[in-house]
């Protein structure tokens, strides 16, 4: 569960989203590093991993939980 203190919204996170947010909580992180973190925690499908990460980041961004930035 995640409570967004800025928006007041509550989110029920998937395990994958939780790993990504934990990674991003420390510092801005590249998509490649996030994919590596997911690979470390889950049995990922390499063929779709890149698209899956992009979809997940898009969803989290649409909920105002993350935003894109330059590293």
């Amino acid at each position, binding site marked *: *569960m995640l409570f967004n*203190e800025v928006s*007041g919204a*509550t989110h*029920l996170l998937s395990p994958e989203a939780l790993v990504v947010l934990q990674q991003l909580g420390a510092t801005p992180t590249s998509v490649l590093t996030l994919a590596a973190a997911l690979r470390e925690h889950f049995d990922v499908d390499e063929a779709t991993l890149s698209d899956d990460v992009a979809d997940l980041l898009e969803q989290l961004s649409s909920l105002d939980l993350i935003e894109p930035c330059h590293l």
Partner: protein
Amino acid sequence: MSLVADLGRAELARRLGGPGLLLRTGPFVSRVQSNIALVADGIGSLYGDYPVEEPGGFADFQVRLVRSTGLRRWWHPQACFDYDGREPFAPLPLAQAWPMFEWVMNWCVSNRAHRYLIVHGAVVERNGCAIVLPAPPGSGKSTLCAALVCRGWRLLSDELTLVRRDDGMVVPLARPVSLKNASIDVIRGFAPDALLGKPVPGTTKGTIAHLKAPPDSVARFGEPARARHIVFPRYQAGAATTLTPVPKGQLFMRVAENAFNYFVLGPAGFDCLADLVDDCDGHEFCYSQLDEAIALFDRLAGVGP
């Protein structure tokens, strides 16, 4: 501390029609003023075991439920609710004054008592184990709640589960159980000795009758309980009695959806609900037989075989 029953009918009517009856229900005191006989009758018959404070004392809520004036005094008379000089509800036909009183009492708590997380649901307790029953209308929640309290469970509330924010304990608010339509005869058949108020037909919820809260539940208004289970009941004619686990994440979201003030409380509500969900197992519960349902609840509370 005197009880409503100690006042006698004349003094009850005098206070209601004058300075107000300071009625204690759970942690709250309401100053009730009313010139409607149905309200006095309802309080006299269903609230006899409740403590009353001395006139002039402090009240959390100011409740005035009075007859309409002007032409409406004679032509289709109405009951009007006044809260601190405002009228948050549209008037209702005078014949519905009693259910309106109960709705008003619920409204005061659900709109004002934000020192609690308030979940729309019944809560009952046995053997130190409180079980919360959040559910939408029509799920059979009140019928199940009424059956449980008629079989020895303590009523903490039929409608408003009050979770204390500092320690997560559920605070009792035992008031009459609202039964609707077919449930009235179901409980009459299930517990012939149960005391029900006079049925009121034609409300927006159909026919309503209130089951008197057990005196022991009322007397123990100062004893909070720890919730151990959150059960989402669903009555289904002919269905087998089944209990299905609800994962914690879904449990959190479903209870939040049923909370009156989760969004009002912000992060404090999140923390309080997280603690409640940590303390409890969640279940979907389908039933058609009240005796089987009670036996299952007894097992959840560690009572019986």
